[in-house]
């Protein structure tokens, strides 16, 4: 028979054993926690399938787990370096490639990735150094062609619902947005708004041909056209796509290089026209140079210092023509040199419920009275600068500006590539109150 003391001892021992057991179970729970932690921290599968060409068991057994982007970059780079058939040594190239992928995915004609040559060309243009045929280009979506081009040139209607259904591929058109004075394009009669159709017998890809082809196929199915007519369209598509240039590459062919010639077919109001143009290097008036009281202004790095020096002299006008899509941050610094403190319009964005006011803080008590020379080449940061000065009453615009008021950030990457990103659009009157255009005829200045 057991005594109460024995029972107590046994119960104490049993309770101790239970505590140890539970403690061990609790400690062992750290195992799945560790597995989960690894899943959160590490994207790669430790045992990649070795079946050539494709995996036999493609779906991983674990539930999908969200991976932070930095881990993704690190692990996929490591995987590539370890497994790719050739040695992968250039890490910056991988990073630029990833950035390129992200920018391309935005499918936005204003947010672009530039390879080394393209980025060098962009920065040179901001400094007033132009290569190629003496024209500047932008990618425009179909609905924007009318707006970006000179209205009198016509253009193409926005895509119809039927066309949207026919093709989900969007290829913007390459349009002239500015011409260098006395450049070979201007001399050959090329005008702002002209679309590039063909370069050296390479068709510049656009959605129109795909729509035409789809429509011809439907018409053939409905017996509206004959097989021979369908084959004519097929042949056209085949021949054109075989040597097609994508718009960005086409732009490079026209804006890079300072020797040789290029044969370009232009499209204006549906009419095509061929020109043979010589490439050359054009150095426009240097930034900050003052001629007859007119100072040239482009928003490249250091433009604020240039403007400060110019304003110290006798300046009655700023020339914003040929001021290619400058740097927005530099433009803001320049604003503070000529505009009194205040709020001048706002930056709107599709993601923000409220526009962000453009607030200028400056020590300018007595602003200068300026004229701003503008034309269709005054775009982006330059146009926003012009509109703000106009709104603040500091300046009147002389000439007819373009309509591109996108705020673009430009980022240079360590390997010489770079990208632009549209972060918003300037709205001079976000509450919807229209401001009268206060423009003069440019002839008055000469």
């Amino acid at each position, binding site marked *: 028979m057991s005594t109460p003391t024995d029972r107590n001892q046994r119960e104490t021992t049993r309770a101790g054993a239970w505590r140890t057991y539970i403690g061990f179970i609790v400690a062992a729970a750290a195992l799945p926690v560790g597995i989960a932690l690894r899943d959160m921290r590490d994207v790669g599968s430790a045992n990649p399938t070795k079946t050539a060409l494709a995996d036999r068991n493609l779906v991983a057994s674990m539930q999908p787990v969200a991976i932070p982007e930095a881990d993704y970059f690190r692990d996929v780079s490591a995987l*590539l370096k370890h497994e790719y058939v050739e040695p992968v040594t250039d890490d910056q190239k991988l990073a630029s490639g990833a950035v390129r992928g992200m920018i391309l995915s935005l499918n936005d004609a204003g947010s672009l990735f530039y390879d080394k040559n393209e980025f060098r060309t962009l920065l040179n243009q901001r400094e007033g150094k132009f290569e190629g045929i003496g024209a500047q280009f932008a990618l425009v979506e179909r609905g924007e062609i009318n707006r970006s081009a000179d209205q009198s040139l016509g253009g193409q209607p926005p895509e119809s619902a039927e066309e949207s*259904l026919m093709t989900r591929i969007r290829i913007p058109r390459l349009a002239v947005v500015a011409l260098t004075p006395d450049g070979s394009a201007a001399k050959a009669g090329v005008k702002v708004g002209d679309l590039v159709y063909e370069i050296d017998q390479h068709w510049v890809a656009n959605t129109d041909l795909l729509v035409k082809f789809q429509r011809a196929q439907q018409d053939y199915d409905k017996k509206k056209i004959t097989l021979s007519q369908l084959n004519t369209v097929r042949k056209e598509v085949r021949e054109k796509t075989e040597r097609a240039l994508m718009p960005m590459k086409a732009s490079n062919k026209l804006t890079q290089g300072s020797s040789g010639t290029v044969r370009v077919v232009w499209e204006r109001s549906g009419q095509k026209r061929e020109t043979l143009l010589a490439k050359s290097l054009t150095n426009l008036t240097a930034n900050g140079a003052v001629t007859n009281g007119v100072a040239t202004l482009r928003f490249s790095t250091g433009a604020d210092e240039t403007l400060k020096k110019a304003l110290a002299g006798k300046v009655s006008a700023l020339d914003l023509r040929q001021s290619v899509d400058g740097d927005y941050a530099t433009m803001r610094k320049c604003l503070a040199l000529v505009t009194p403190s205040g709020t001048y319009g706002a930056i709107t964005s599709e993601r923000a419920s409220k526009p962000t006011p453009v607030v200028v803080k400056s020590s300018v008590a007595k602003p200068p009275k300026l004229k701003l020379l503008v034309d269709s080449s005054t775009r982006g940061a330059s146009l926003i600068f012009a509109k703000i000065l106009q709104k603040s009453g500091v300046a009147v615009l002389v000439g007819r500006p373009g309509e591109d008021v996108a705020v673009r950030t430009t980022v240079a990457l360590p390997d010489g590539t770079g990208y632009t990103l549209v972060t918003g659009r300037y709205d001079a009157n976000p509450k919807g109150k229209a401001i009268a255009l206060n423009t003069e005829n440019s002839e008055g200045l000469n």
Partner: protein
Amino acid sequence: MKIAAYISIALVFGGVGYAWRDIKAGKPVNPSAWQRLAGVTDERKDSPEQVFKNAYRLIRNDYYRSVKPDDLKFAGMQGLLASLGDPHTMFMPPKLASRFSEETVGNFFGVGARLGADPLGAKAVSVFEGAPAYNAGMRPNDVIIAVNGKKVAGQPTDAIVGQVKGPENTYVNLTIMRSGSEKPLQFKIKRGRITTPTVESKVLEGTNVGYLSISNFAEPTTSQFDHELDQLGAKGIKGLVIDVRGNPGGLLETAAEMLSRFVENKTVLTMKKRDDQEVVKTYSGAVRQWPYKIAILMDENSASAAEIFAGVLRDYGLVTLVGTHSYGKASVQNLYPLIDKSSAKITIAKYYLPNGDFIGRKVDDDGVYVSGGLAPDVQVELDLDKDPLPGDPKTDTQLAKAIEVVLKR
């Protein structure tokens, strides 16, 4: 004291858990995984990792439209892999990875119809014989205008496919427009496992020549190939045309299995990897009798496993290649599934055919074909003016030539 012991045990278990992936794979524990646990990252301003992170954050925070974080991340990875300039090394986000899986594994759950775009919804391009949709009465060219009562006009085909597919043994209601039928038809179809037909055959009318087309090299392709060959053999064919035009390839293993029907213990190809090389051979004991001439039809869209299949048979002198040159994909990829169900397809080797040929495609600066691929023994173009229907010798000029080749004495 006891608490300290429990904490130690927990740390050991936690550590084992963290390293479990490597332990399970029989690999040494990855040191970078531990660095990551300790929060060690490359924070240098211009380090590639920072360049990527900065761009990612800038786009996420400042781009004027909202962007889904996963879409952006996956686009970044697609760009990263694309930066190598190898069109066959690519990143596949989960949805694409899953579709790729279905194509290569060759089966999934659904109703058994291949859908294409249509302004009213989705058109059944083909309905697989014996599959649930076929048994319920659906036929090619039927247009699905609603799924489970919801109209699908204007939706992308992929989205409609997603609604039609579902777990095994569940039902889907399809509303169909059929030409000649006044009212829309209603079908209630039980979803089942669908094995995509990859091989089709017939005896060409009035010729005694068998025609066998292979659409891709998936898992079930070998057994489908055997089945169709048995049927053709029973009909006493005097020649065979194997059509791999438009065949993008698939599993190397399947191609090797199918080649084992022709030759045993022979080299299929030599894979040259970064550090070593590997020879893939055919198996023994599976050779069939081929008492007739064989021609293989190919074109510029015949790639990868299709080129291996055609190239190996050519090198052993068993077939005549008819058509135009093939694509020229002379590399081998591995698929690396990642734990969020996306995957990376990476080129791990270049391959050489048994006679030592490297058929890698070369293009000029404009991406136009210069060289590569298998050259046909008999070059013949498809005459588009005849509105060719593949498998119809009256309109398919390449097939007509192939028939001539296999019947020639």
